[in-house]
């Protein structure tokens, strides 16, 4: 391995300039200067699509509007959450297709 020694930094010799405060005016000035050259806002706009359930963290699949409405109405009628219907539908699907299911 190399025996070369790095040089030594003398912190006292380092120069630094006074930078502008992070005021909204300074930030806007910087943004405008950047935008003139195509340096634009590319921050993620947030997650698209349906948000996960705050309770379970699950993201439910999107369905056609009439299916969603029908599931909602049936769940209300039975007094259960929509997930119960989905679980039942999944059990039927597994049964029809000979799939194993944990339930």
């Amino acid at each position, binding site marked *: *391995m*190399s025996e*070369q020694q*790095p*040089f*030594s*930094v*003398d*912190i006292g*010799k*380092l*120069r*630094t*300039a*006074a*930078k*502008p405060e*992070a005021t909204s005016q*300074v*930030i806007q*000035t*910087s*943004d*405008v*200067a*950047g*935008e*003139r*050259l*195509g*340096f*634009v*806002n*590319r*921050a993620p706009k947030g997650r698209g699509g349906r948000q996960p359930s705050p309770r379970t963290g699950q993201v439910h699949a999107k369905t056609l509007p009439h299916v969603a409405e029908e599931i909602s109405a049936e769940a209300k009628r039975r007094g259960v959450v929509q997930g119960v219907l989905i679980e039942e539908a999944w059990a039927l699907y597994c049964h029809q297709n000979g799939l194993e299911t944990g339930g």
Partner: protein
Amino acid sequence: MPVIVIASPKGGAGKSTTAILLATELALAGARTVLFDCDPNRSVSIWASRKKLPKNIEFINDVGESEIIRAIKHHDTDGKIVIVDLEGVASRLVSRAISQADLVITPMRGTTLDATIGARALALVAEEEEALGREIRHAVVFTMTRAIRSNQHKGIEVSLKGQGVDVIDPPLMERAAYSALFEFGGNLRDLPPQGNMEGAISNAIEFARAVYQRLAEPVEAAA
């Protein structure tokens, strides 16, 4: 204390390698450095995850455009050198980071494409200098340079210097050890042998020294 921003809207120009080499060599030279990874590709984070961070290096990631200025200011304190590795796109994050820089380094390979896109970073520095009314020193470092330089590389270097652009000498050479940093983490001295280690270490030291000299001399001597 100095804030060094590594900026080029061109991906693959060597920004993260430049940032890591600079941070690790300055740290070995006794400077406390704070290394920001602001690149969604998280190249520096990969390096940082490989091994315990070398002495004198603090690592910060997940900083977006809304926090970048405050984050830099928070760490821009006595006795520290802040190094910011940016994403390889033309974004507001880049322009905001540059507003806080003492030195902007634009890495570029010796190709027309890198030079053309990298020049946008130089133009942005000039634009911000005018808009903010303060001088921001900037320099170009050629990366992945081979011992025998192409005519294209030589032409670009002559052209940049002719336009008054500060070109850091030495360039960063193409070394297996530099790529290996992302596999093993740490600094060059920690690596298992990778090709010409002596050459890689010597090149990195001289590059860091050249940057240090720019940070240590008055701004008016820069041009």
